[in-house]
């Protein structure tokens, strides 16, 4: 399991999307999110995007008011995960046209579907934006 979890958090530290690929109880999730938010949001632009936390590494990137945080195993390639985050943002951007925090809030399900198309059980399975978005566009058309 390369990716342990994907979190989207806004500047105020509120979770906007949370997908875990390993089982944690609700309390554990809440504690983890709190700790990570405290650790990562205080960091500045001049600091690197990798934070060691507990037994894994968090790779994060900030886009406007949203932080994309990905928890990975310690031996995962950090730069590749950064590329993955960027791909995720680009995909969302293409679908929502200039994605913002509200888009994700009001379309949480779709954001999850996009993530589902890209990541399976912590493994990245799809990296083509067109293929990722096809089923979602089809669903939009069908309804």
């Amino acid at each position, binding site marked *: *399991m390369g990716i342990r979890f994907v979190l989207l958090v806004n500047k105020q530290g509120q979770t906007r*999307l949370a997908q875990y690929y390993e089982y944690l*109880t609700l309390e554990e999730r809440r504690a983890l999110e709190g700790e990570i938010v405290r650790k990562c949001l205080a960091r500045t632009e001049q*600091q690197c995007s990798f934070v060691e936390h507990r037994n894994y590494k968090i790779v994060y990137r900030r886009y406007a008011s949203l932080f994309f945080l990905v928890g990975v195993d310690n*031996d995962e390639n950090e730069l*590749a995960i950064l590329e993955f985050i960027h791909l995720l943002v680009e995909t969302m951007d293409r679908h929502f046209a200039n994605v913002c925090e509200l888009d994700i809030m009001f379309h949480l399900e779709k954001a999850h*579907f996009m993530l*589902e198309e890209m990541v399976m*059980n912590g493994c990245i*399975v799809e990296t083509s934006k067109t293929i990722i978005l096809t089923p979602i566009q089809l669903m939009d058309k069908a309804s």
Partner: protein
Amino acid sequence: MAFAASSSAGSAGSSVSCSGSFTPSLVDSLFQRSLDDMIKALRSAPGGESSLLPRIIDEIRREVRSTDRDTKCLAIQKLTYLSSLHSLDMAWAAFHVLELLPSSSPAVKRSAYLSASLSFHSSSTDLLPLATHQLRKDLQSPNPFISSPALHLLSLSSSPDLALHLSNDLLSLISSTRAPAAIRCRAAATALPVLRLAPNSARGFIPELVEFLEPSSPLLSTTVGVFCELVSSGDPCPYLTLAPDFHRILLESRSNWVLIKILKIFTRLTPLEPRLGRKLVDPICELMRRSPSKSLVFECIRTVFSSLSEHETALRLAVEKVKDFVAADDDPNLRYLGLHALGLLGSNQSWALEENREAVVKSLADPDPNIRREALRLIMSMVFENNVMEISALLLNYALRSDPEFSNEILEAILLTCGRNFYELVMDFDWYVSLLGEMVRNPHFAKGDEIERQLIDIGLRVREARPELVRIARDLLIDPALLGNHFLHQVLSASAWISGEYIQFSRNPLEIAEALLQPRISLLPSQVRAVYIQAVFKLVAFCFVSFVNGEISSDSNCDAYENTGADSEGGDGEVECNPNSFVGSMGTKEHITSKSIIHMLNLVGTALNPLSECDEVEVQERARNALGLVHMLNGIEEWKTEVEGWKTHGRIREIVELMNSSFSEELGPVSTLAQMKISVPQELHLKENLSDLAEVLGSNDISLSLSVSFSLRKQGHFENKDESEPANESTSLLAEHRKRHGLYYLPTEPDENGSNEYPRANEFALSSNSSNTTEDLLKLTDHSLISRKMKSAKPRPTVVKLNEGDFLATTASKNANEAKEDVLSGAVKEVLLGSEEKPSSSGKTIPEEAIQMRLKETLIYSKFDSGSTEKSILVESKHRSSSSQKNNKNHGKERRRNSKKSEDKDGNSRSSARGSHHHARNKHKQSVELGDAALDVALPSLAIQDFLL
């Protein structure tokens, strides 16, 4: 309803129009809050979200019971939103989610699946078995929008039973020719959790997945990911046989994702088979030179550093590349990763670290604490016994100017490195002890625990360091400013203990008594005060004894110390340390007169009297002890007068002897296993009486092994730090240090002795006049590589070690580690190496040694027959047949070398069994029938051997 997520909004809207027949739910449907409305309401709730949540949950609870599918679905959607963003428990709604899974509407189904995969888990939901049939049906669906979420649920929430039940369906999906590649990819990714939950399914999955290890396979990326996980999470041995496949992918694949994973696999495999390295060097160097992708280049560097470091060309190139990372001024990410990669290098490749030294030292001043930490780690790994003084002094100086957190990290790193393995890096304990003293003066200091431990530990273990310890302890005790800092209380406690225990090395016991009894000690916590008072007790006893003995045997003042020193500590005759030389170098000691004793007794009396009523028992008890001694001594008038012959007074002799015998025994370190050394008395039957309890306390074993493995980890950590590099001292720093602590250098500069008699308490702060940039740290970079000998010719004092204790601890933990079994690797071994042993759910696995032996043997055989693979196969088959009984009948059969074929066969027979619901039974049968195939599966081990030759 302005709702852009039209899937859910649409369905909610349609429910309003078409569900009129359900009267009970009509009202609900009509006035149901949409997801958008709920989010808006939560955002604009005047009392914050928490004020509105209970009401919304009540609504959802009502709506979710609705018989109308769309109302229910919307309720579940809202609940899912709240659960995943507001951490609300939705376990109670699990059944409602299950009810929605069979829905005919893809949108509803998908919502239900999402909700299930976000909230279900086998440990929290026992309803999952109810979904088995539905999952199977959806997995087989030709519509990828239905099978995909089903796979997702299976991968995230499956239980062992469910995994076993559905493994067959998953297998057919992976190998299906009709299903789209995207779905097969997902199915292959789902194989990983299924394999973990049901290791027995490895027999089916592994050969299937191996087939996709083709550079042209559409499932390559996922399959490589799965193997990467398998290799890194379990025992990598069985996957050695796949090395040729991985190698081909390394050569042919153009995808960075795939190449990164392949490199990770090889990082694990190369240590097992060093000859793989030769095959890898060229392609990896090629990638490093050509690839524009930083992530791939970094992965190459990491692979080379961690497992190909003995290959000179690759290492040179990787070091060249890592320089770009470490020196990337505009990108903190690359700097961090560069430092991180350098940390992977072992001590043999220290030149590589040396080449990047300047950048590493510069990084200590990086704005990012994470980068600073990495740099600190690297610098500590460069510490060697010949440069430990310089580096520690530099870092300590640097710590003064750092922020509190990093400052303490530096202190911790120094303490950890110097204290490692019984202070193996420390040659000069006088230096180290004074270094500890300096650390305490750091304004951010917060490492009291560790300093306390080390001060006392050094006192117990290193006899030669005691005079300096006492001096440092005095400096700390005498400074009233330190008492107010609660981080220092532990250190003061250790100092007080040292002052009491080794008071014979003090030049002025009276001064220490005053320090120990100063009014501000009321600021200390009671347990530290207890230590203070006990130290006073020892001190009074020592002074009195030395006064009496000194009066007896001396004519000159100077002899007083000599005799008392010998008397007070030499009672047991095992003291090698001669205080004479010490006294000689320190100059004359203040003579103890009856007046000074009287003064001291009065001081103790006044200071401790109030404490005899203290409500802390420890303090009270010890205060009373000390007061008792004072009263007793005060009660004897003879010694206060100048009357001749009082020394032979019976009562005084009695007291002196009593005190001598109570404090003459030297305290030493205690082995952790000391208890084991004591033989159990014969009449004591420890185990017999307790054996009845064994069943009740069965869990004890677990807790024991846990603690053992913890100690192992700790040790591993220490070993990691051991990647040292010789670096050299800066003479200017040494000179500075010598100036400050000249007393403790050999007398090459004799004039320094006198000037340093009473070092100032805040000496360190005064001397830190260097510039406040990292420039002085950069001096480190000026050092040449050639390690110089220690300047000081002083022999290293012996450190008392109790080695056998540690040795036993490590072996015990090793055993515990070996005992850990991995069911999955066992199952995979069975498939890939064709071992005779069948995997069983009881977790019986093939011992690793056996596998390695087998591999080794095949390799040895192959050496004998230069190139003739036929022969090696023959030898191999003989070897196998002699070791296994079940494949006797296939002995003479022609063996196919191609591993693929054997797997095909395996696959075919399996596909014939496919579709049957009695899969488990079939599989069992298959394993018996296919003795032949099982034998052939062993042959990949020959493939790798050819590959390596």
